[in-house]
């Protein structure tokens, strides 16, 4: 059942539409991520849910209770029982960590302090932190205290607005785990807003992609990554090779040979989505031995990330087709080396159309991925 439901949310500022007809369901007890580039309207959506701004149209229900119905109902933010973790934490600088965590509790509960200690423990901080002044905490500790503060009064939902921005990679993954643990432990429904596709894929039970104020796709991370709704989303959620191809029943012909298709199978010209880790490289045998059947390519360049290496390849036939392959082999082929390519698993195809630059592609060909990127297929 959806704990939080947004129906037909629309909002525009000075005639410019920021949100258009957004329907969003956040299942109870899980973490859902909203993924969108900057300016996609994700923060506005969050502010509508919180009640900080009033939508032009649409309804918001929390646990079945109407909290906003444009033009008719607008429950004040403090009556919605929705927890909120602002960017950078936004701790009250004049209070201690404990004062922050207890802020939303009833006076008697605040005095006893039991719930404060409990909430701090939930985010992996021990009780001694309660006395520390908020402005003396480190960046990671501030985010944790902000989450503890939001969870302490046991809200029905907690909204997290880019909760890890500005943290360095190691601290980020540590804080990420602390957040996941706390939210799961409490069984709180959570909605996380982020522009970082790795963060969305690794943390969300479901991921909703927001594009230009519209909900482009809401799916589990695995489906979103392997079977995105269009080429645009494919590029947005991870590195993607998109090759021109010709589809017919049962397969598609493209620069990497004939491949099997999963999902919708349109006939005619298509774009073929091949993830870099689907491309397998092996040393070329004798040119004669391949009978011209295998796809051969020449290594142009590679980028070493540690756990894996991304290799840029130029396919020999048809010429000038550039693809990227990701390999966990520590001995990646050197530039100039000839390799044979094979594609593992079925691929997804989209009806061919002009490239759509609407989304800022995070993992597009030619750009290295964010430092701590780790794509999890679930």
């Amino acid at each position: 059942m959806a704990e939080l439901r947004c129906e037909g949310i629309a909002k525009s500022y000075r005639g410019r539409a920021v949100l258009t007809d957004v329907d969003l369901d956040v299942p109870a007890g899980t973490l859902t991520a909203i993924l969108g580039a900057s300016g996609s309207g994700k923060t506005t959506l969050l502010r509508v849910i919180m009640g900080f701004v009033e939508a032009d149209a649409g309804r918001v229900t929390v646990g079945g209770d109407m909290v906003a119905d444009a033009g008719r109902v607008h429950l004040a933010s403090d009556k919605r029982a929705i927890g909120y973790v602002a960017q950078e934490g936004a701790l009250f600088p004049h209070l201690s960590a404990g004062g922050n965590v207890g802020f939303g509790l009833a006076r008697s509960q605040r005095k006893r302090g039991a719930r404060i200690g409990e909430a701090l423990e939930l985010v992996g901080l021990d009780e001694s932190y309660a006395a520390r002044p908020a402005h003396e905490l480190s960046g990671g500790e501030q985010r944790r205290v902000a989450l503890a503060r939001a969870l302490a009064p046991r809200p029905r939902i907690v909204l997290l607005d880019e909760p890890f921005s500005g943290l360095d990679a190691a601290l980020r993954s540590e804080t990420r785990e602390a957040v996941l643990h706390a939210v799961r432990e409490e069984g709180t429904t959570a909605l996380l807003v982020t522009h970082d596709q790795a963060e969305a894929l690794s943390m969300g039970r479901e991921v909703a992609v927001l594009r230009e104020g519209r909900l482009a796709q809401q799916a589990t991370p695995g489906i979103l990554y392997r079977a995105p709704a269009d080429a645009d989303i494919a590029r947005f959620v991870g590195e993607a090779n998109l090759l021109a191809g010709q589809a017919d029943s049962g397969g598609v012909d493209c620069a990497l040979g004939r491949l099997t298709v999963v999902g919708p199978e349109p006939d005619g010209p298509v774009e073929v989505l091949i993830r870099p880790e689907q491309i397998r490289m092996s040393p070329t045998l004798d040119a004669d031995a391949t009978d011209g059947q295998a796809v051969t390519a020449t290594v142009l360049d590679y980028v070493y990330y540690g756990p894996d290496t991304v290799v840029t390849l130029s396919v020999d036939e048809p010429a000038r087709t550039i693809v990227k392959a990701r390999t966990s082999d520590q001995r990646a082929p050197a530039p100039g080396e000839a390799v044979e390519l094979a594609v593992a698993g079925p691929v997804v195809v989209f009806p061919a159309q002009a490239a759509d630059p609407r989304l800022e592609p995070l993992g597009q060909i030619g750009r290295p991925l964010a430092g701590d990127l780790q794509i999890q297929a679930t």
Partner: protein
Amino acid sequence: MAIASALAYAASHYTPGLYDSIVLLVLAEAMLFVPFSVVAVCFTLNQIEPALEDSARSLGVGRLGAFARVTAPLSRPGMAAAGVLVFAFVLGDLGTAQVLLPPGLYTLGTEFQANSSTVAFAAAAPFAAVLVALSMLAAFVLMSRFGRVRALGSA
């Protein structure tokens, strides 16, 4: 000086009771220096992140509560600074005092001026010393409190 003269004129015509009373002087000083304190207070209010009030609201605290528990305590240093600033200004404001001071009363400034203009430097010196001391105190208070958020501990 202009405001003081205008006030003196207006008071003597419309509210004879106020003329020659300390109330008029206080009123004049307030008119002169309130703008400075407003600027100082506005500055601190602008420094307070809107996300803090949003967070307070999300924790079930109403608009008034958010002001009382977040905005007001955070703007306290700014208020104090504004007070000290105005204190220092009033201390140094000779003109208004000369025009509006009721007979028989004097300020540090008028007394220093009266003595030093009659070349009674020895008599003027103590007033000058007190003036300098008070100004330094004001400057010290300003510098130690302003622009820094103090930890007040959990309320």
